[in-house]
Every structure is written in structure tokens, then in C-alpha cells.
């Protein structure tokens, strides 16, 4: 892999990575850039509490009772003000869509479970389960296994 630094005092600062696929290194670079630019977290609301939720502490973002909700590593639910479709482009590449209304942090998925009904559930480290739609399951398989 080559390293290239371009010094241009007039240009907007940006980091561009050309890689054959997402890897641990690209993830680390993305996390570093996001933390430096202050875009590595979301604001979550719970009762009277407002908290900065770093992306790495979010298990998944889903819609519960018609509200966009982030579930953190302790299983706490936080209401998010942004809409799910607005969040998708700003979340790191490690967030994958597992159904029409859920974005999952792939680093926090413990396993995928085949359920008796023929469907698939994603089980998160905090114990939360969410169904994986057939379309998204096929997409995840393509992403992971190249199928």
C-alpha cells in the first residue's frame, strides 16, 4: 500500500483511501478521521438525559414505536432526532442494513441465528435480537462471502 501526502494550503482537508475492500485498517483510518473531525458520535435522548453516543458504542439503530432509536452496548435505548435514511450516509461503513428499519453495527453482532420460521435473526452482544430481512440477508452474504 502506498502513502501519499498532498500539501495544499488552499484546499479543504480530506483523507482519501483507495483499497480493494473494507478492512481493519480502513476502519481504523475512518474512526481516526471521524474522531478528529468530531463526527464519530450521535446525540441520544433518554428521559431527561442527553448523551453523546460514540458510533463504536452503538449496537444498532432501529425504529421502535415509530421513533428512531439507538441501542447502546449496555442495551439502553436512546431516541435519535435524525431520520434513519439521513443517518445512513453519515454512519461508518461498519453499519449495515439488516432490514427496512434497522442499521446494525457489524462489530457488535454476536451471531446470526436461523429461526424455526425460516427467517434469520441478528443477535447483538447486549442480547438484543432483530430480524434480518431476506433481501438484506442476501446483501450481507454478498458483502461477506462475495456470493
Amino acid at each position, binding site marked *: 500500500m502506498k502513502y501519499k501526502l498532498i500539501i495544499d494550503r488552499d484546499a479543504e482537508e480530506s483523507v482519501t483511501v483507495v483499497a480493494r475492500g473494507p*478492512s*481493519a485498517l480502513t*476502519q481504523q483510518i475512518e474512526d481516526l478521521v471521524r474522531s478528529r473531525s468530531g463526527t464519530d458520535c450521535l446525540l441520544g435522548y433518554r428521559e431527561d438525559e442527553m448523551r453523546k453516543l460514540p458510533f*463504536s*458504542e452503538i449496537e444498532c439503530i432501529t425504529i421502535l414505536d415509530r421513533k428512531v432509536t439507538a441501542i447502546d452496548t449496555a442495551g439502553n435505548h436512546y431516541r435519535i432526532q435524525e431520520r434513519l435514511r439521513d443517518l445512513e450516509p453519515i454512519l461508518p461503513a461498519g453499519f449495515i442494513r439488516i*432490514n*427496512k428499519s434497522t442499521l446494525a*453495527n*457489524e*462489530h*457488535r*453482532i454476536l*451471531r*446470526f*441465528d*436461523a*429461526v*424455526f*420460521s*425460516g*427467517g*434469520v435473526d441478528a443477535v447483538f452482544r447486549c442480547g438484543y435480537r432483530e*430480524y434480518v*430481512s*431476506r*433481501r438484506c*440477508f442476501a446483501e*450481507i*452474504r454478498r458483502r*461477506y*462471502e462475495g456470493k
Partner: protein
Amino acid sequence: MKKYIPEFIRRGLIACGFGPMVLVVCYLTLQQQAGVQVLRVSQVCLGIVSISALAFVAGGMNVVYQIERLPLMAAVLIHGGVLYLSYLATYLVNGWLKRGILPLLVFTVVFVVGYLAAWAVICFTTKRKTESLNEVLKRKQQAGGEN
């Protein structure tokens, strides 16, 4: 759910065009196997209408596989249940299945065995796919370092 009703009708209308072609196969089979040489006008009309209706339902019911939230097995069961009732009604209306416990039982057993086989195949396939995906997920998380 409302958006699936027009889709059901659209798919049904496309499929019901093939109804009379299926009826041709049924009549030719009856001629070859049961020696049926003459059909009354009312029999032909009933055949065309009932097979077109069956084709409409069978074609339209494929829409259940488009409902993302519905697990595959649930979709198969709904599809299978509706097809069972539709086929049974069509066979009985046209007199292709004798009325009585035994013919009904044979028909039902053949249908149920077919669907159990489909169920087993789907469960086995889904389990195999999730196991393989879990292995890739585990490797990916180990390589990237868990958060």
C-alpha cells in the same frame, strides 16, 4: 399492506392468462388417461373460469414473498395454504377429484408431504447459510479487533 393488494391483482392478472393453457393440458390428460371424449359446453365454461381463477390466485399469491417482514417459512405456509384450498376447490368444482374422505385424504397427504419437504429444505439451507456467515463474521471481527 395496502401496496401489496394492487401487486396481488397485477400478478394475478398476468398469471390468469395462462389458465386456459393449463386447462388444455388437463383436458388432454383426461382424454388420454380417463378416456374422456366428449365435454359439455357448461363443463368447458366452468373449466375455463375456474382454472383462470386458480391461476389468478396462484400468480397473485406470489406477492407474499415480497413482504419483507414475513419470514420465508410463514410466506411458504400462507402460500401453500391458499394454494391447497384453491386447488381443492377447483378439482372438486370440475369433478376431477371424487367427493369423499379417501380422495380428500390422499390429496391432502400429497400436499402436506410436499410442503414438509419444502420446510425441511428451507430450514436446513438457512441454517447452513447462517453458520457459514457466522464463521466469516467471526474471522472478520477477530481480524479487525472487537470494539
